[in-house]
């Protein structure tokens, strides 16, 4: 039974770090990719909306 409250550090020599990460890289990578893509997408949306708002009417 996994206790969610006990997130303690395990001693981690570099070797098992690599093999562990290799197993779970999909999920770890996925979540960080999600977060990065979300921020990038929202930034692009803001940029596009700013461009549209800043343009004067004659431009459209």
């Amino acid at each position, binding site marked *: 039974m996994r206790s*969610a409250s006990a*997130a*303690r550090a395990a001693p981690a020599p570099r070797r098992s770090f690599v093999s562990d990460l290799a197993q779970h890289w999909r999920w770890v990578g996925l979540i*960080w990719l*999600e977060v990065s893509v979300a921020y990038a997408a929202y930034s692009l949306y803001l940029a596009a909306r700013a461009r549209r708002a800043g343009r*004067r009417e004659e431009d459209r």
Partner: protein
Amino acid sequence: MTDTHQAPRRPLWWRALALVTLVLFLVGAYLALVVSPPDVNQGQLIRMMYAHVSVAWVCFVAVLVTAAYGMLFLLRGNGIDDARAVANAEVAIFFAGLTLVSGMTYSKPTLNTYWTWDAKLTLTALMFALLVGYFVVRGLIDDPTRRGRVSAVVSMIVAASLPFNYLAAAWFRTLHPTLSVAVTGVHVAPTMLFVLVFNAGVAALIYLTFVSERVRIGKLEMARHEERERRESGPGSKEVVRV
């Protein structure tokens, strides 16, 4: 790439903030992916926790700020308060959606299921639905004053619903005891705590960066709307500005 017609520029302080935020985001990612030790129980998967937990709190702060600016709008009648309210609502719904998606991503490898009716995630899902309602209502009202007023009312109900929905979600979970995505901070190793707090701070900076830019855009749109109203006293452009 740059606007050619006297478009108000983004202020220098904001550009600096955005740059610093970007750099710190990369630092935070490095801390989470490399510096943080693996967890006793979750192993390398703990690196996902930083991505999820660090953003999970932002949407709630943003919703409360939305309601606060809504109330200010009711008190002062200043359209800028409504612009600030909707900016915070937009960033809130963004972070709520991100929390839900990252929560499901975190949940699958650690708890072997995409959804566990975890109290905080259920609350986030309900709040997401409430914010959708907020924007739908805004989209249906053309008059800016009435729109601001009704939005303020809706945002106050949304804020009021949070404690009740949390209680309901928490008690609902006692009927379905399953593992929780949440990581309580009590026994976290010092390094992990630092990485978590650092990333949570980065999330705060991202929130501020997004919201201040969104407010600036809202003010621009308001100004453009007012300019058009002045120029066209008769029937003219049918476009309504959505702030």
